[in-house]
């Protein structure tokens, strides 16, 4: 009978019910998409870095794990010293540049031969390596996003480049220029941002890192196997704060909408509540009904919100192929939990107000 009463109550006010459901769905979508976007970017970047095929990333002291961005501060001559470490097969210096004019794009300045020695070479879709200083190699995701083909011009860091080749994505950056060009653009001649290191035996990575730590005690040495997971699990204070803020705002939206919806509902249904009380319905019965109605709204909202999140993720990736929205099962559970909590909090006061109504006054309410 409770089910009938709840469904009848929700169906009697279709607009308000729909708005409440959509607000909860918005709350869930907001959490999942924003968290998914930040997680997706981190994970995808980590995967690409992993995909370089190197075994160790050699970075300056105190450099950032995330995106491995830093000023090119290491002398390129370190390459030879790194090669001398037992177990090292090949070393590729990389100069990283950041293009923020249209999103955040990382550009690698590389020596093609040395880079291929570490990575095993690119998988070419079209074209090949740059032959001139104003040429650039892009990955297929970038080419799709920017709708460029071999021979087209792209503007990066206020420089015009001609696309010389398109490669399969997943090898560090999406854009590659020659080391010489990178050094000219940054003014950092004979400098590198990091070195990718290939080992004779990848299973000896910890041993080789141990050796390298003795020679380079202050430098950042990171194994690249499972680099993506490391990026996901690394606590980034700014990112955590951002996610917490988004979750808080989303929960507040849910609480306020449910509160408003339930409050106006119990006001409109004062007489109904009086009727139920006159029939012998206890305060607990009334509170239970309100909570159950709120729960139904939240559950439907959660289902719609999760569905919308996946749709929105697809849409984002369709419009912006370089962006990844990663919606994980544990965040679906968290977002659902937050939505239910917001429903409980939002309906707490209205339900208690409804239960506390005097039956005589409630019946007389017009």
């Amino acid at each position, binding site marked *: *009978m409770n089910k009938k*009463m709840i469904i009848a*109550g929700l169906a009697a006010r279709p607009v308000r019910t729909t708005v409440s459901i959509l607000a909860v769905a918005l709350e869930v979508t907001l959490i999942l998409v924003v968290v998914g976007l930040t997680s997706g970017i981190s994970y995808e970047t980590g995967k690409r870095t992993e995909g370089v095929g190197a075994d160790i990333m050699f970075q300056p002291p105190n450099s950032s794990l995330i995106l491995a961005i830093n000023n090119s501060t290491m002398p390129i001559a370190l390459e030879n010293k790194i090669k001398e470490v037992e177990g090292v097969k090949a070393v590729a210096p990389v100069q990283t540049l950041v293009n923020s004019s249209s999103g955040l794009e990382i550009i690698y300045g590389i020596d093609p031969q040395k880079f291929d020695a570490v990575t095993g070479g690119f998988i070419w879709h079209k074209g090949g390596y740059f032959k001139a200083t104003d040429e650039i190699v892009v990955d297929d995701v970038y080419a799709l996003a920017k709708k460029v083909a071999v021979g087209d011009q792209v503007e990066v860091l206020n420089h015009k480049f001609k696309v010389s080749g398109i490669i399969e994505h997943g090898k560090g950056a999406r854009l590659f220029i020659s080391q010489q060009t990178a050094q000219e653009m940054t003014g950092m001649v004979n400098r590198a941002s990091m070195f990718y290191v290939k080992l004779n035996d990848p299973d000896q990575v910890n041993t080789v890192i141990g050796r390298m730590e003795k020679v380079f005690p202050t430098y950042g040495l990171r194994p690249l196997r499972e680099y993506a997971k490391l990026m996901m699990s690394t606590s980034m204070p700014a990112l955590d704060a951002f996610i917490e803020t988004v979750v808080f705002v989303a929960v507040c939206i849910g609480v306020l909408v449910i509160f408003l919806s339930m409050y106006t509902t119990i006001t409109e249904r004062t007489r109904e509540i009086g*009727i*139920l009380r006159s*029939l012998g319905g*206890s*305060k607990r019965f009334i509170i239970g009904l309100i909570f159950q109605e709120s729960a139904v709204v939240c559950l439907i909202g959660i289902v719609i919100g999760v569905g919308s999140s996946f749709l929105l993720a697809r849409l984002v990736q369709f419009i912006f192929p370089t962006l990844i929205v990663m919606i994980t099962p544990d965040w679906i559970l968290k977002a659902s939990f937050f939505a239910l909590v917001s429903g409980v909090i939002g309906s707490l006061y209205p339900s208690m107000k409804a239960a506390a109504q005097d*039956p*005589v006054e409630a019946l007389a309410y017009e």
Partner: protein
Amino acid sequence: MKNLLETIDLRKTYKIGKIEVEALQGVNLRIREGELVAIMGPSGCGKSTLMHLLGAMTRPTAGKVLIDGDDIAGMNDGQLTEVRRNKIGFVFQKFNLLPTLTAGDNIAVARHIHGRGGPEHDQHLEEILQMLMIQDKMGRRPSELSGGEQQRVAIARSVANRPAILLADEPTGSLDTKNSEIVLNMFRELNRRFRQTIILVTHNPELVIYTDRLIEMRDGVIVSDNDPFPEDTESELAQPARSV
């Protein structure tokens, strides 16, 4: 005959701002099992307040209200609710059916709250519905029923759980003459066939002919009572509470 309702020096005072209004000023009455009683009086005489107290909707300011043996004066909200659930049925002037449910579901809600629903209750309910001539109206919403039909559904709801007492507050106030007659005859039938104790609260003297006893009120007190058994002094604590 057992007393189902008894009031002893019953008083109820309301505070409206700084003014205190004494709605009941010492009411003493006794209503026995199986009686069909009218409580009549002009507007503001205290009859609705008396009905609310007899129906355990509120507590008295002073005095006693014994409902089937239970004194409600010291009861908390939960206990009053339980008395209403187990012992009282209400019929209101404006029907007070839940508009989002069908007639059948309106009756089912009352049974759901009461927690009953065995076969003997289904049979009893079936009899009531036939007597009230609404068995074919169960699938309709209140908005799809006439005033008379709605009131009969409300009556069915009020007696579905076999309460000890049925309280009707101006039950024909929103009905035309024809439907009023039908509803009042239904009350009489309920009283005759099922020995349902019924109290009708009204300002309309035409209802009196349908009842066995008339209690008149004015200014918060009873001014006349044609109790057929005025000398019956059975103690309020003599019998344990029971349902019909």
